[in-house]
């Protein structure tokens, strides 16, 4: 389907972040990858974000097709702004283009906190560490700049916003990006042709667009987050329990949609409790989080181990 879509998607990501340093700099930093794999670093120029119309792709990705360094987290520590309680203790994580990662871990181990700190949530204060995203210091950026740079976080429990329809919200977010890229903003009528195919992809009713943001049921909220992702595009999407509250069919729809958004260049960091999701979106790396840090990293077999033996089986000793 030929969409007159955000040409932002077909242009270089350099356009969306004019101060992006050359990618070369990415490789001068510490590169203490804990993963034992061959990392094929492509030196081609910056590339497109999400390609919208790529066919669904369900195979395992990441291990053999890693691209350039996308996100590098080193020693990230954070406290809750109000209470100063420590919630992240020196987290390390590296994601390359095209990789799929999963984070698993007990309730309260800090998974959502990690995703919100990456998104720039003011509830948390970073007390140490470095986060580099596409060569830029992520921690220096406002949440909206992180979004423009290509980071999309789907929240575990996105907040309800009465009075603002899903359609208006999508349009606002879309136009914010257009503006950032010095592109003409789009009118509410034209915008429908942008949203409509995404709706279809997610098997969502058009009526959904009239409802207010995150006012729908748990499952609808999750679809709605993926709809936003589909409309806005991203280089790295963090999906926090995108599978919770979804029935089997809905999970398949959502997983299919996510796979449909994947390209060789964008990456996923998903947080989940269930292996079920990993059957649909296959990660090359699984990380276990415990008490605010990543205690173990392995391949998809770690998830299986976890399911069979519980957290004890994978806990650090």
């Amino acid at each position, binding site marked *: 389907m030929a969409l007159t879509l955000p040409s932002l998607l077909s242009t270089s990501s350099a356009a969306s972040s004019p101060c992006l340093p050359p990618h070369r700099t990415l490789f001068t930093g510490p590169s203490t990858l804990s993963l034992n794999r061959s990392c094929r670093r492509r030196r081609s120029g910056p590339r497109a974000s999400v390609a919208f119309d790529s066919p669904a792709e369900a195979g395992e990705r990441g291990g053999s097709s890693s691209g350039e360094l996308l996100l590098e987290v080193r020693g990230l520590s954070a406290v809750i702004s109000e209470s100063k309680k420590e919630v992240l203790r020196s987290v390390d994580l590296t994601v390359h283009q095209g990789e799929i990662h999963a984070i698993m871990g007990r309730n309260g181990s800090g998974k959502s906190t990690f995703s919100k700190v990456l*998104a*720039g*949530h*003011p509830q948390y204060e970073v007390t140490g560490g470095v986060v580099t995203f596409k060569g830029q210091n992520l921690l220096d950026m*406002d*949440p*909206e700049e*992180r*979004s*423009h740079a290509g980071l999309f*976080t789907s*929240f575990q429990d*996105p*907040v309800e*916003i*009465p*009075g*603002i329809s899903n359609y208006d*919200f999508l349009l*606002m*977010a879309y136009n*914010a*990006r257009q*503006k*950032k890229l010095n592109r003409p903003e789009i009118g509410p009528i034209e915008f429908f042709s942008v949203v409509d195919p995404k709706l279809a992809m997610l098997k969502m009713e058009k009526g959904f667009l009239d409802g*207010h*943001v995150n006012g729908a049921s748990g499952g609808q909220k999750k679809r709605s987050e993926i709809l*936003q992702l589909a409309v*806005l595009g991203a280089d790295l999407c963090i999906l926090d329990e995108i599978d919770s509250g979804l029935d089997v069919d809905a999970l398949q729809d959502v997983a299919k949609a996510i796979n449909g958004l994947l390209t060789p260049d964008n990456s996923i960091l998903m947080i989940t409790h269930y292996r079920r999701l990993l059957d649909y979106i296959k990660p090359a790396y699984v990380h276990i989080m415990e008490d605010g840090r990543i205690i173990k990293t392995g391949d998809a077999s770690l998830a299986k181990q976890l399911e069979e033996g519980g957290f004890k089986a994978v806990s650090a000793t």
Partner: protein
Amino acid sequence: MYSLNTPPHPLLLPPPLLTMSSTTTTSHLLHPFHHHHLPKPKPSPLRLRLRSALSDPRLLHLAEKLEDSVSPSLPLLHNLRLSSSDSILSKSWPTRRDDPFRYTDLSLLKSSQIEPSPPSPSSPLPDEPQLFPNRFYILDGHVIPSLSSLPNLPNGVYVGGISGVPDRIAGSVLDSFSGFRDGDLFWDLNGIGAPDVAVVYVPEGCRVEEPLHLKYVFGGGGGERRLAVSNPRVLVVVERGGEIGIVEEFGGGGGDGFYWANSVAEVAIGEGGRVSHSYVQRQELGSAHTKWTLVQQGSSSTYELVEISTGGKLSRHNLHIQQLGPDTVTELSSFHMSRSDQLLDLHSKLVLDHPRGYARQLHKCVVSHSSGKVVFDGNIQVNRYAQQTDAGQQTRSLPLTPRPCINVKPNLKIVADDVKCSHGAAISNLEDSQQLFYFKARGIDTQTARDAVVFSFGAEVLSRLPYEALRKSLASDLKGLIADKETIHLPDEI
């Protein structure tokens, strides 16, 4: 029938007689007026009595001018005028020492020269899109049937001035004047100065499908320190099982006209009746707006009010709801936005005296200007016999200035023991809000995100308006007010 000399407190009287049967009663009721009061010569009773009373001279002068400004030949209003002039004898201008006005600065009224508004329309009506087919205009308190349009009213429904009230319903209409005695000075001034009463009468069992839009228009004609006062008055009578939606809309000109709108609406709902009341106050920014809404709810009746107030320099709404029987449903929602040097005040009182009432009140306010003020004094009183009442009261404020002036006093007073009650008062912090972060996380710039969160805050109340056309119109108004950065002073980002 209500009479001035009835000694007991009117609120303790049994339900007013919405069920009174018509013909014989009517003539009986009307008689005394024809006999005793119609050929009333001047000087008026008010003047005579006020002269001899120890009253506030400025007030006396105003009351006299108001009395002179109205036509004396409306027999159905005689009692109202008489009781009001009686009552005003004991009144003086409220000061900050009077509890109901502790936070409400009336200096705009006190420091202005006040004249009754000129009797004839002084400005043409704005040409504006019409939201409802049933429209009734009230210009400076005068009903204007020629501008009104009432195509969709069922048989038996009356909407019009008090002199046109058909005989068959005159008794009911008269009896539905509450005879309320706890009114303040403004209540009394309206009783004296109302040139007419717009009567809305819904007969037994009649459901009025289309809402009735009451448009209050004000000619202004004042100036700096000079306000033209007018006293619109409405009486809504819904007989047993009747239903109607009323939209009261004040102002909307968007200018900064100088006038004082001192209005009263009385609503009497018979057993099982239902009134959905939308009240929109977008008066001009130089104006003063004082309003009483007095509601009497018969058993099993429903009263729903949604108030959106964003206008006026001084705006005071007194809302009193009296429950006259069990099983009533009362839902009150209000949104106030003070976005310039303006005071918006709601004093509400809901008294529950009968079992199994259901009551909800939601008050929300935004103060977006450093001299803006909001006052809320909300009382819900669950008395001894109001067992199994389910009452809830919530107030939420969203300050957008560093030192906002917001006085909220929610008060849920419970005497009965078998009741379900909930209440809450919260002050939201825009900068810390999850919503603001959510917008930003989707790439929306801070200013747009703030505006959207403020809009969303108001939209919770706006969305309760039962009519889409009105919702849309007010939503776009609200967006405009929020985006108008000349009047909005948001704190700088920290």
